[in-house]
């Protein structure tokens, strides 16, 4: 190997241009990237490229790749199909009613290529700029700025006074007055029921032993509850017998005959 021969290491298979492309198959980042590379090979400003020529370039590339049985990702084929469709639209006589407008589609493709090219160039320009940690440096161990946090307590005069008021109120002796409530005590109910029941041995509905004029509803409920418990108590003591035909049916009561 001599250094004077720069072509010594050049690839042997440089005969076909499509080969060169295919050898680089893995280096494209998707169909748009491939399209951009092909567009650049037209060696004109991207705003002046021939979309039809570009479409042909792409379709040729895909055909060659398939001829060589190279695996192509689906998105390359989708792009190929879309470009073939675009080409057919562009070649047809111009139809003002056509939807979508092929010229607009071509313009959009051109826009995307220009935009990708611009962003690619912008990325490289950014990387070429002075960078922190390589060109510029900050102080490695700054002392830092300290912030002492000081608590300021908020309490207003009203809070202070009402707190003291609350303490005094707590200290005040509380007198609890229990309001008298209309109830029939259990003892009273037992005594009353026992008396009314007498020595009757006929079944009588418990409700019939209750006072008839119970205007106060609270008192009526109390009387009912007390009388029921009184009936249970008398049954327990063996002085009465209870019977109920069905759930929620009337409760019958009679005195128990003493043997």
């Amino acid at each position, binding site marked *: 190997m001599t250094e004077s021969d720069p072509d010594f290491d050049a690839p042997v298979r440089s005969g076909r241009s499509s080969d060169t492309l295919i050898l680089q198959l893995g280096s494209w980042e998707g169909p748009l990237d491939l399209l951009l590379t092909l567009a650049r090979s037209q060696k004109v400003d991207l705003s002046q490229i021939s979309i039809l020529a570009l479409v042909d370039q792409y379709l040729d590339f895909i055909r060659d790749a398939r001829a060589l049985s190279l695996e192509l990702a689906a998105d390359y084929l989708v792009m190929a199909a879309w470009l073939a469709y675009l080409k057919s639209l562009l070649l047809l006589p111009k139809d003002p009613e056509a939807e979508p407008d092929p010229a607009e589609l071509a313009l959009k493709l051109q826009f995307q290529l220009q935009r990708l090219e611009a962003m690619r160039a912008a990325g490289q320009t950014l990387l070429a700029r002075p960078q922190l940690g390589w060109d510029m*440096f*900050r*102080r*490695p*161990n700054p*002392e830092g*700025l*300290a*912030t*002492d*946090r*000081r*608590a*300021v*307590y*908020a*309490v207003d*005069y009203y*809070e*202070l*006074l*009402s*707190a*003291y*008021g*609350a*303490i*005094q*109120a*707590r*200290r*005040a*002796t*509380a007198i609890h007055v229990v309001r008298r409530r209309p109830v029939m005590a259990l003892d009273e109910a037992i005594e009353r029921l026992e008396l009314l029941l007498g020595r009757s041995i006929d079944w009588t509905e418990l409700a019939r032993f209750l006072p008839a004029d119970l205007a106060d509803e609270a008192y009526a409920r109390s009387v009912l509850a007390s009388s029921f418990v009184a009936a249970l108590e008398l049954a327990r003591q063996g002085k009465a017998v209870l019977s109920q035909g069905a759930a929620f049916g009337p409760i019958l009561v009679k005195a128990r005959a003493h043997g």
Partner: protein
Amino acid sequence: MADAYDLALTRALEAILFAAETPMTLAEIARHVGERGDLLPTLRALAESYAPRGINLVERGGRWQFQTAPDLGHHLRTSRETVKKLSRAAVETLAVIAYHEPVTRPEIEEIRGVAVSGGTIDVLMAAGWVRPAGRRETPGRPLQYATTPEFLAHFNLASRRDLPGIADLKAAGLLDREPSRELPLPLGGGEA
């Protein structure tokens, strides 16, 4: 100092010393700038040019470094105030101390009807409103607490006499319930 060579050297020295992790000896500095002859005069001139600034270039034990001017330390610390709400227990304790001072902790507990944690009184002292006020000359010599002038200032009171009495509190509706007849008014007589 005026010629281009010295300017370039001076700039390099500034950058090197600014970006240095630790103070640097002359030899270390020289390694960074390359062979440039005697650095010392340029370093000294640089130090002089920084002398009136907020950043100074100083030599300590043969090592050079930038540091902030010694008189500006107070700018490097700031205090930020955070407003905190005083707990209910603390407000009540403060009120009891204000109305009954000097007062011992057992007395505060008796008046409030609940135990008072040491932390509660600590908070009031940290706020600058309560201070220890000697010991009560009774068995156990318990510590007494009283309010501070800051307390009066915070509540805009000329003196503790300005605190409203129980009757005033009641008139203002600050007592939810009627205190019992037997309760002695805390602000009785000359003490308050």
